[in-house]
């Protein structure tokens, strides 16, 4: 390949690196991908759409424990066999058995329960004129939604939140030091999942876990351990993401009171509003892949084993795909990749889309004049982002 194309460079481990920066926007304007200190970053929508689904790229985080000195044990066995890191037929088989229970047809039954939950949480602070998004709303909401979905009693949500965030330490570089805590938390979560499975096998109900227990594709079923592993993965994968995404959405609306009022007056726009905030500010700012074989695409050469990051926020604001990138909750847009894409496309996206739609609709119905109510604190604007602390003051509607 000719080398006269100037390929931008991004230092993504620099603590000041941010997706919303001139550096990243300039890189996107300059070329469709950038080099980084960890492989390549795909910046433009057209190319993210194309390459994210390319079978020459694997999910790649399967080796994460090994790369960090963890080669066996309870966490290792779970992680290396869970849906997120499986590839090929092993992935497709489990994904096929899981998919139907997460389809709109089955998920819509949970709508009244999610609405009741959103109402209950909002009622707890509505007369105070202020709330802290994470503590008062998005964390209990995201966790209790998963309790409702899996059938875990909502009263146990703080335990579930603690277990999921302890297991989340496995994705940090302190995985080895934290391993005993991570394994204790995973064992406890296994306990919840195993009890649910045994109960629904004995007493089938009209719910998600029963559907998964009974899932059957041409005679093939999920074993108890496959189902247990999947339940733990979806609790793990559905909590922080939803919590963070709600916070990011509210920040977007706080900046655009006109859009908030439009939503309040037209609650049917809530679904589209969720798409719009995820396009502009996805919590998962990049989705990572690893080349299985040497991959050549136009002027990009990725050697086998190298990393490719798909920058979702950057592609979601690419002027080529979105000529009017300003927030507009009435716009019909090209799809964003905040839920990833291809065979690993988020399993729980219909759940997340529905619960966030309900949250945005109910919040906009009940409050107006949103403004910052204290000191905010945010995770870095890269990898998985969102609020740590986000106080909002408002007027009750």
């Amino acid at each position, binding site marked *: 390949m000719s080398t006269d194309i100037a390929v931008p460079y991004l230092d993504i481990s620099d603590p000041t690196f941010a997706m919303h920066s001139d550096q990243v926007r300039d890189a996107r304007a300059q070329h469709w991908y950038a080099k980084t200190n960890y492989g390549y970053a795909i910046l433009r929508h057209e190319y993210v*759409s*194309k390459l994210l*689904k*390319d*079978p020459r790229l694997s999910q790649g985080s399967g080796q994460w424990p090994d790369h960090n000195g963890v080669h066996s044990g309870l966490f290792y066995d779970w992680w290396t066999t869970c849906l997120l890191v499986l590839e090929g037929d092993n992935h*497709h088989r489990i*994904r*096929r058995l899981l*998919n*139907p229970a*997460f*389809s*709109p*047809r089955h998920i819509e039954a949970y709508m009244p329960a999610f609405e009741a939950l959103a109402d209950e949480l909002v009622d707890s602070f509505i007369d105070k004129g202020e709330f802290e998004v994470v503590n008062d709303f998005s964390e209990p909401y995201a966790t209790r939604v998963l309790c409702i979905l899996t059938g875990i009693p909502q009263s146990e949500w703080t335990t579930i939140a603690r277990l999921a965030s302890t297991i989340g330490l496995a994705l940090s570089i302190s995985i080895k030091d934290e391993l005993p805590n991570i394994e204790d938390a995973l064992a406890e979560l296994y306990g919840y999942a195993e009890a649910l499975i045994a109960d629904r096998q004995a007493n089938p109900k009209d719910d998600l876990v029963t559907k998964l227990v009974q899932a059957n*594709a041409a005679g093939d079923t999920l074993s108890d351990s496959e189902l247990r592993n999947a339940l733990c993965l979806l609790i793990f994968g559905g909590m922080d993401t939803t919590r963070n995404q709600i916070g990011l959405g509210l920040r977007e609306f706080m900046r655009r009171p006109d859009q908030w009022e439009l939503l309040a007056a037209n609650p049917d726009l809530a679904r589209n509003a969720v798409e719009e905030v995820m396009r502009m500010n996805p919590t998962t700012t990049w989705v990572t892949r690893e080349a299985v074989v040497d991959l050549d695409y136009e002027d990009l050469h990725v050697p086998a084993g190298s990393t490719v990051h798909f920058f979702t926020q950057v592609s979601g604001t690419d002027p080529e795909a979105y000529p009017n990138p300003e927030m507009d909750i009435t716009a019909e847009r090209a*799809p964003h990749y905040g*839920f990833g*894409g*291809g*065979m690993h*496309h988020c399993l729980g*996206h219909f759940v997340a889309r529905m619960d966030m739609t309900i949250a945005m609709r109910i919040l906009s119905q009940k409050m107006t004049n949103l403004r910052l109510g204290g000191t905010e604190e945010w995770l870095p604007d890269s990898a998985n982002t969102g609020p740590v602390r986000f106080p909002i003051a408002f007027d009750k509607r």
Partner: protein
Amino acid sequence: MQVYVDRAKCDNHGQCTFSAPTVFRLDEQGVLQYEENVDESLRDEVEEAADVCPLQAIFIK
């Protein structure tokens, strides 16, 4: 049974290929290809594919 995929919606995620591999497949370019006339015996599989499609782009007549 007639199967129709709305190309304007379909984003080639390939989830339908897990449910009904003899009806839906991704070609070398990663673009969805599918059968339009499908035997009635495959109805369950095709309905499952339509249910799980992330873009809800599959229609059955």
